[in-house]
């Protein structure tokens, strides 16, 4: 079973040289730490920055320079600032190659729910609805089951949707899964996890064809 860092490391393998990538809050943010050295990747922060760098050194933080999670950050050489309309303009116009975000639920036709739990606090969708409606490629980083042990990979989402038919790939602590027109397709198992365990944790349609390899993380 993978921990959060394992999920981030596995997702980092999906990033290709020359990509512009938007990372959501939580596990997706960690992905930045595992982009292979020498690869030229530009991180987009939807509050208005291309070329997001690591956290600043202690004492060098700048209150005018934050990411979409409101964390203090730095820029890398070649970065650019812009306003929020242009930021979502480049997202809507599909200039961003890959979007990585978290989810509460994903259905086997690629619907995603990640912004609201009715009856509990609603914090808002932020930029998630814009991102999922337009992104060319969306990878979801999430836990396979919730705290009650119920699958979060479903036939149909029970929570209010963020977007429809948009998720392309899911990486969980148990598996790497593609979303196809015929449902979830199991691609890889986490180290030490059996196909049966993944089947048991997946409520939506799960296609299993041939031998399912164990993922290679490092």
């Amino acid at each position: 079973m993978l921990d959060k860092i394992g999920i981030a490391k596995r997702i980092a393998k999906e990033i290709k040289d020359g990509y512009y990538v938007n990372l959501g809050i939580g596990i997706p943010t960690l992905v930045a730490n595992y982009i292979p050295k020498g690869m030229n990747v530009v991180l987009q922060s939807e509050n208005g920055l291309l070329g997001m760098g690591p956290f600043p050194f202690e004492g060098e933080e700048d209150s005018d320079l934050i990411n979409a999670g409101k964390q203090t950050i730095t820029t890398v050489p070649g970065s650019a600032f812009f306003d929020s309309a242009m930021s979502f303009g480049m997202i809507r116009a599909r200039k961003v190659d890959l979007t990585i975000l978290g989810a509460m639920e994903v259905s086997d036709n690629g619907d995603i729910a990640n912004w609201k739990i009715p009856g509990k606090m609603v914090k808002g969708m932020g930029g998630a609805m814009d991102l999922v409606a337009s992104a060319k490629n969306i990878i979801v980083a999430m836990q396979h089951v919730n705290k009650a042990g119920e699958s979060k990979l479903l036939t149909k989402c029970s929570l209010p949707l963020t977007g429809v038919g948009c998720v392309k790939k899911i990486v969980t602590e148990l598996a790497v899964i593609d979303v196809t027109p015929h449902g979830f397709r199991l691609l890889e198992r986490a180290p030490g996890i059996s196909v049966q365990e993944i089947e048991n944790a997946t409520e939506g349609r799960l296609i299993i064809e041939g031998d399912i390899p164990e993922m290679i993380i490092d």
Partner: protein
Amino acid sequence: MNKTVKNADEAIGDIKNNMTIMLGGFGLCGIPENCINALVKKGVTGLTCISNNAGVDDFGIGLMLQTRQVKKMISSYVGENAEFERQLLSGELEVELIPQGTLATRCLASGYGMPAIFTPAGVGTEIAIGKESRKFLVDGVEKEFLMEMAFDADFAIVKAWKGDTQGNLIYRETARNFNPMMAMAGKITIAEVEELVPAGELDPDHIHTPGIYVHRIFQGVNYEKRIEQLTVRKK
């Protein structure tokens, strides 16, 4: 054309109860601190506030929530605010949550003189309920878009890094965020800046918001520029 006013109190002096105001900023970054403090002091109530976020309990728009001056918030994300949560759950506060890109682009539409925009954000979700939609071909594939209306705000209040007496504005780093398109979208736009200079001192090539959109400008004081999530690494 001199747009200079003395301070925040003068700039917001004619904002009245039940008006709709836009406030720039993302989180606590690039928010008009001086004008928010002046609005709290003035005590106007029943305000509809269009702002990406609602501040935190003791800073930013959170200050106006504490004093019950806000009737309705139109935002994309309102986490990190306990008083907000309390007022929302008790029904004291109306909240309209809209996608962040939709929020930005509805401001832009106002400033560009366009009544509406079409966006795919929210198609198939509860925010599409009751909205007109239309299908367009995108890369040869039919895709559905929602029609979203330009905002109509009595006042826009923005914060810039530098400005001149003509109202030309330059923002700094990610403190730019929603400020430029909100500046374009107010019937009356108020800009507070960290440094106000005479017209002619800013390079016209570097202006982000041309002064035509700005009606009042002043140099703010005592900027706190609070950091919401301090994240650092060790040297």
